[in-house]
């Protein structure tokens, strides 16, 4: 109900405001242009993702001080603490960083966002900033029309900055004109009541505009125009700091428990900082005076003093909270307990990461690896071989197969429903929602990951069909057919082992060569098994009925081989960021492998 009437109410109030005051129209247009600039800036920074952001993130957040520094720098560059906190939540949810690192970034972002106040107060009011905005808009738009991704991104950033400056100019002009018609200072309240009321205004304005930056600019321009008193402006800045947490809280609704913990940490930090600032507002104002004097800021330059206040109280907040960060993490873990990780549910596909191509691709990659883990499980069960013994013991496969005869105790369909289908469906649904409009590079990766997930399901289904005769002929009195089915089991088990080795391979092991070797093995095995079947039929060692079953099952094993090798190639070679593009480009296809396999075959027949 509230949501339904909110937008029409805002439109009516704005329309009425435009009707009675042309100056209000100029201020509102300024806010709108400013927010549009922020959107453009966000778009621009998104164009620079594609591995770059992730790489920087991993290197610059391995220590707490580095995380804080990263928060400061990234927020100063992007000029939006909300954007940085939402991105941090998505990184955290995708498992790219830990909670402590995330909290460090958020602390840093709070300090980084104060650079905006410095820029506007120190620079925006001393020069006509629209003069800088115009060329930025022209060059930015020119670059937006360029084809290369990076140029386009730079264009969006430049145009975004241009719009930010233009928006500030409009707000400034509006407040200057507003000053002559309406004196808002008449409504200012002294004492604690005024402090609390203007803090609340700051919170509300930030919640509505979804930008503490916009509130701060509005506050500074109003202060410059004499529309609010210095004390009330400080309260508005405190309110803006608290209100900005709303974006992160909204962003965390769709995040996992780690993301939610971070949003709560953000709220706790900003509330505590705000409470301290309100409680000690007078001593703080005196400290601001001392610092300003020390920095050479004139006692009446309230704009720069507001910037000093903004930086100072965020800095005090960090200093106060930093020693408690470990306890905060422990408290958050108690407050929002982690759900037991389950193989049945997708772990990484979260709504909060869907908007960031890099993070979303990483989420799909991790979920596909999760599916791979379950695939190994179900195939090992299908072969009736304990997974740990199969993959970790290194025991000879002949011995393992002999020790674990095939029985019909395993409910394949139920296992598939629980462990595979839900994750596979979630991957497909996530990709279909996220892939639209993405950059080609990410779409390409996603395409391969989707194919890998499909290939896993194909292989699982082939194992399911194979099971029937594994049970039937596994106990056959005919030693030849029993041996052949044992061979099929051994072959699939061997493949699982080799794929596990491939998963753990380092670049020096040349994973690309390992995969092509597996492809070649597939061809050789298929040819050899077919020859064996022909021979057994000729020698009447197996009945024609057994032969047709074996031929069908050999086709299933061939499918398992082809599909699983395809999965291995995608997950451990194509998606392996440690390998160069050149190495990936040398992968051989079936036609390129053929001369090798033919030669190998010829040589083997000759020996």
């Amino acid at each position, binding site marked *: 109900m509230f949501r339904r009437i909110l937008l029409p109410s805002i439109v009516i109030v704005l329309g009425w405001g435009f009707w009675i005051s042309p100056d209000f129209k100029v201020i509102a247009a300024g806010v709108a242009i400013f927010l549009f600039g922020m959107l453009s800036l966000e778009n621009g920074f998104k164009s620079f993702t594609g591995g770059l952001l992730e790489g920087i993130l991993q290197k610059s957040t391995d220590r707490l001080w580095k995380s804080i520094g990263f928060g400061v720098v990234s927020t100063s560059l992007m000029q939006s603490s909300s954007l940085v906190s939402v991105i941090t939540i998505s990184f955290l949810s995708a498992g790219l960083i830990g909670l402590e690192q995330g909290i460090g970034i958020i602390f840093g972002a709070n300090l980084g966002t104060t650079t905006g106040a410095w820029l506007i107060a120190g620079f925006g009011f001393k020069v006509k900033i629209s003069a800088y905005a115009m060329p930025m808009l022209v060059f930015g738009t020119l670059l937006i029309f360029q084809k290369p991704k990076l140029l386009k991104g730079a264009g969006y950033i430049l145009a975004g900055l241009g719009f930010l400056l233009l928006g500030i100019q409009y707000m400034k002009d509006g407040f200057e004109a507003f000053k002559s018609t309406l004196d808002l200072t008449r409504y200012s309240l002294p004492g604690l009541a005024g402090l609390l009321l203007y803090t609340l205004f700051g919170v509300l304005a930030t919640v509505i505009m979804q930008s503490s930056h916009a509130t701060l600019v509005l506050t500074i321009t109003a202060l410059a125009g004499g529309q609010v008193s210095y004390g009330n402006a400080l309260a508005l800045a405190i309110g803006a700091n608290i209100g900005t947490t709303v974006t992160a809280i909204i962003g965390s609704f769709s995040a996992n428990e780690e993301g939610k913990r971070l949003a709560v940490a953000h709220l706790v930090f900003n509330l505590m900082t705000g409470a301290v600032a309100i409680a000690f507002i007078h001593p703080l104002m005196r400290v601001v005076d001392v610092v300003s004097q020390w920095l050479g800021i004139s006692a009446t330059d309230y704009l720069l003093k507001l910037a000093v206040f903004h930086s100072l109280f965020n800095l005090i907040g960090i200093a106060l909270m930093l020693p408690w960060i470990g306890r905060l993490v422990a408290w958050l873990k108690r407050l929002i307990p982690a759900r037991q990780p389950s193989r049945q549910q997708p772990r990484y596909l979260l709504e909060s990461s869907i908007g960031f191509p890099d993070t979303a691709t990483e989420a799909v990659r991790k979920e596909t690896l999760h599916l791979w883990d379950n695939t190994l499980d179900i195939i090992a069960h299908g072969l009736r071989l304990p997974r740990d013994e199969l993959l970790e013991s290194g025991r000879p496969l002949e011995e393992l197969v002999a020790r674990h005869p095939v029985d019909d105790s395993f409910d394949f369909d139920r296992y598939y429903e629980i462990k595979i289908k839900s994750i596979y469906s979630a991957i497909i649904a996530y990709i279909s929602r996220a892939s639209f409009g993405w950059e080609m590079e990410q779409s390409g990766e996603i395409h391969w990951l989707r194919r890998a997930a499909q290939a896993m399901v194909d292989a699982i289904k082939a194992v399911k069909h194979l099971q029937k005769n594994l049970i039937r002929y596994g106990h056959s009195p005919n030693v030849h057919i029993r041996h052949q089915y044992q061979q099929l089991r051994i072959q699939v088990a061997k493949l699982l082992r080799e794929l596990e080795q491939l998963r753990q391979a380092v670049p020096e092991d*040349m994973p690309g*060569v390992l995969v*092509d070797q597996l492809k070649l*093995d597939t061809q050789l095995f298929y040819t050899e098994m077919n020859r064996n079947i022909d021979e057994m039929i000729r020698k009447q060692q197996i009945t024609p009925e057994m032969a047709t079953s074996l031929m069908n099952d050999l086709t299933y094993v061939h499918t398992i081989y082809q599909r699983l090798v395809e999965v291995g190639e995608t997950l451990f070679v194509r998606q392996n960021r440690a390998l*160069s593009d*050149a190495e990936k*480009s040398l992968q051989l296809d079936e036609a390129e492998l053929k001369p*090798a*396999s033919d030669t190998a075959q010829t040589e*083997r027949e000759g020996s």
Partner: protein
Amino acid sequence: MGRKKLLKKLGEFFSMDRRARVRRKEELKDLLSRLKLKECELLERLEQEADPQRRKALEGKIHVVHQQRKKGIGLLRELRDEDA
């Protein structure tokens, strides 16, 4: 640095395609030398191997490495032709 070389360097710097090609060529050269080493190592192991099963497996590996090298040399040649 001569004018021609300077112009070439500047051209490489400003052309993203060309920069990518240069990087790709370097990667390919490095990879080909590693593959060559691997092939030699496998051939040595094959000479010393007497077990027919293991020999067969080694032969398969050598073929794969050889085919990848062949493909890599072809790709490198294509890149050089594009530059010429």
